[in-house]
């Protein structure tokens, strides 16, 4: 069986190379049979990778420790679902997951476009399969998941595996890596179509319309993956930090920033025929940042608590990145004439300009995070001395950027295309602005003096007001014209232009998340060596440890502390945080208990037993408003899904072609 798995990967590798070659030669020599053969090779690669994955999964679930990978990343007593998640718990398996997700995307693209985009498809397939060749190279040579332990050859039989890293034995880890990968890998599709469009000099913006849904779907996966990671860190690492500016967290966020910039700037190309070069650059940047993120995680050039699978395959990534970026730059430079804008900006105060500023801010944030992440390495290379760039530096740089972005979230959508008038600005922004100032003054009077928190709350109100205003105006008009109730009119309004109103919902989700982030300014914590029966206090909570219990499961031994919580002298809730020591890894891990409420979370971690007095060490935290982050995500998700629904009314936008393309119009003969 193991040989079949290795053979499947090897054959998939060979067929991927064939697919690239057949597609390119077929397009060059205009041989349809070769093009078709290249596409069929994709289906064969898909089948082979499914087979290889199936074999690895079977080995994991049946604890077949002849496989080195299975022995290194699972053990017999793990529940079956964690055995499945061991698939991405180590280097070789997670690279196979890359291949798995990538080949699914390639398969769907080929099936979807059997009769469409025939001129572009050979190059799309070649780009997809070239990426597949790279990842299959890794799985075939330096990181094969089918390496066997030489059991029965004078080597002691492996009775049980090492087990999965205990930090990964948490429910979000069952879905976080696959979803994040679906977001990362997914951007290869818009990138492949962009390349296909560039190579074939497709007229119009065909690749934009074709890949619009792909881009939104993969952005949803990226957002979900990042948020699941934050949720995992919050609930598992034991100190409630959902974002710690760790290098691996940072590199997962970079493609999200560029893809968000792309989703905004692409509207300029769709509606105005502008920013064509920029959109190609953003799509390519997103794709290469995804590869860069994987390179950072694998190469070990920066230390990270999340780098579960670092190794020496970094050089492969570096070569792929350099070649890919060089080729993309060459393609763009060679086709600048084809990428010319069809229109020009007419005013600084316009929707177009707000998109430009939005892009500038998103990229500034991207650059700041990248710079901060790489600075220790760069500094050491330049000065020979190591420096640290920790969370305070990232907060100092990114909070102002985030606040400006939040401001633009409120301003941008209300500016009109082409040119905003002074009267329009006053009409749209007067009351939200006054409301924001009054609200901030009120909060200040109530004692909220943290400047960033104050500004965040104020801006959140401003953006909420502008969004509500937009919905109200549109809904009122429809309700009046169509004699509808208010709620059906909201649905009707949203259905008429799903991308616009779905986008507003996404913005609202971001606003709600910012409220959650601002709550961090008021976090409280305490660490006590708790004496049984004696009360300690944090905030309005009186806490008392009434007992310590212990027990054992097949997978770990556990110890829990019973913590009775009272508010105002009245019993409120009893929480039982646990600490576990996993049998195979002997690694202690906390299982925190969180009382989640809309206004704050009470978070209790049973950190350890004190070595001298054998008393439980209890860490208690109050995290105000943190639940708003997760609620914000659901709103963001709902908004993104609305964007995917086709609009009821097909809108066409007048392009300012007379202005921008004047030179291209034929002159009237004199």
């Amino acid at each position, binding site marked *: 069986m193991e040989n079949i798995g290795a053979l499947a990967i090897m054959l998939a590798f060979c067929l991927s190379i064939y697919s690239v070659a057949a597609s390119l030669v077929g397009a060059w020599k205009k041989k349809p049979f070769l093009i078709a053969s290249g596409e069929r090779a994709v289906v064969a690669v898909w089948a082979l990778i499914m087979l290889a994955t199936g074999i690895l999964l079977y080995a994991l679930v049946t604890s077949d420790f002849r496989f080195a990978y299975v022995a290194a990343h699972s053990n017999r007593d793990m529940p079956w679902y964690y055995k499945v998640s061991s698939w991405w718990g180590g280097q070789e398996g997670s690279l196979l997951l890359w291949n798995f997700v990538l080949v699914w995307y390639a398969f769907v693209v080929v099936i979807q476009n059997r009769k469409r985009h025939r001129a572009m498809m050979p190059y799309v397939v070649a780009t997809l399969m070239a990426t597949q060749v790279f990842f299959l190279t890794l799985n075939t040579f330096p990181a094969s998941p089918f390496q066997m332990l030489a059991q029965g050859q004078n080597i002691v039989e492996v009775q049980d595996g090492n087990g999965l890293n205990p930090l990964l034995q948490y429910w979000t880890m069952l879905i976080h890596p696959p979803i994040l990968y679906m977001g990362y890998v997914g951007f290869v599709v818009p990138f492949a179509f962009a390349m296909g469009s560039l190579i074939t000099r497709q007229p119009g913006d065909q690749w934009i319309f074709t890949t619009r849904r792909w881009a939104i779907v993969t952005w949803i996966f990226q957002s979900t993956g990042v948020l699941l990671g934050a949720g995992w860190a919050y609930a598992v690492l034991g*100190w409630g*930090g959902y974002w*710690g*500016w*760790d290098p691996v967290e940072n590199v997962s966020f970079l493609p999200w920033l560029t893809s968000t910039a792309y989703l905004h700037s692409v509207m300029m190309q769709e509606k105005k025929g502008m920013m064509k070069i920029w959109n190609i650059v953003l799509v390519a940047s997103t794709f290469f940042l995804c590869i860069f993120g994987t390179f950072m995680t694998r190469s070990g050039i920066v*230390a990270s*608590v999340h780098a579960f699978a670092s190794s020496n395959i970094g050089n492969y990534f570096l070569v792929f990145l350099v070649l890919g970026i060089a080729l993309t730059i060459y393609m763009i430079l060679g086709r600048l004439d084809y990428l010319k804008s069809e229109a*020009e*900006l*007419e005013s600084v105060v316009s929707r177009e300009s707000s998109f*430009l*500023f939005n892009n*500038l801010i998103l*990229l*500034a944030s991207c*650059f*700041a995070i990248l*710079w*901060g992440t790489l*600075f220790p390495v760069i*500094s050491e290379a*330049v*000065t020979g*001395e*190591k*420096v*640290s*760039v*920790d*969370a*305070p*530096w990232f907060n*100092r740089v990114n909070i102002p950027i985030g606040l400006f972005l939040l401001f633009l979230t409120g301003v941008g959508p209300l500016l009109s295309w082409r040119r905003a008038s002074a009267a329009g600005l006053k009409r749209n922004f007067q009351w939200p602005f006054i409301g924001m100032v009054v609200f901030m003054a009120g*909060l200040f009077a*109530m*004692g*909220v003096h943290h400047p960033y928190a104050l500004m965040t*709350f104020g801006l959140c109100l401003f953006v909420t007001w502008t969004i509500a205003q937009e919905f109200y105006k549109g809904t009122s008009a429809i309700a009046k014209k169509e004699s509808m109730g208010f709620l059906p009119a909201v649905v009707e309004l949203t259905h008429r232009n799903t991308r616009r109103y779905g986008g507003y919902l996404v913005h609202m989700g971001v606003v709600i998340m910012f409220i959650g982030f601002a*709550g961090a300014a*008021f976090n*409280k*914590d*305490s*660490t006590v060596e708790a004496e049984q029966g004696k009360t300690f*206090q944090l*905030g309005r909570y009186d806490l008392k440890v009434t007992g310590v219990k212990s027990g054992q499961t097949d997978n770990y031994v556990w110890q829990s502390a019973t913590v009775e919580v009272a508010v105002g002298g009245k019993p409120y809730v009893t929480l039982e945080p646990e600490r576990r020591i996993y049998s195979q890894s002997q690694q202690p891990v906390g299982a925190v208990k969180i009382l989640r409420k809309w*206004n*704050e979370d009470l978070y209790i971690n049973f*950190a*350890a037993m004190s070595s001298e007095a054998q008393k439980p*060490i209890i*860490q208690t935290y*109050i995290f*105000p*408003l943190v639940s708003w982050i997760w609620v914000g995500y659901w709103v963001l998700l709902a908004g993104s899904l609305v964007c995917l629904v086709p609009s009821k009314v097909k809108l066409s936008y007048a392009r*300012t072609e*007379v*202005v*921008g393309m*004047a030179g291209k119009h034929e002159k009237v003969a004199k």
Partner: protein
Amino acid sequence: MAGICLAQTGDMVPPEVRRVGDRLACLCGSCNNTVATCQMVGCHYTAPARQRLSEMHKSGVSDDAIVADFVKREGKKALAAPPTEGFGWTAYLATPLMALAGVGFLTWYLRRSRRKAVAAQAEETIDVEKYQKAAERELSRFDE
């Protein structure tokens, strides 16, 4: 919301540890926190660092001198953020400079676009005037 945020008591980490510790990195190697914010119980770096910090504070050493002492022992990596000297400045200046360059590029782009727009509009106006004159000439022939 403000009420919720204000209904908290003071925290347990002594203020001097919070203040000075925020300037010092936790060098345990498994977190990205500062000596003030590291939450690992018995962290092999933060726990003794906090103790030393408290002792120095009690013996009247200033905040800057405490930080300087940590840098002397551990090197510049003891600081939570790059030092504001020499190459360390680039950590702080690179992002604002890039943002400024971006704003500069946007300004140039907007000006160029507006110039083109005005030129095209002027060209369009000349064309319209030309057609209007031609139309008037033709119409005047009909009158004749």
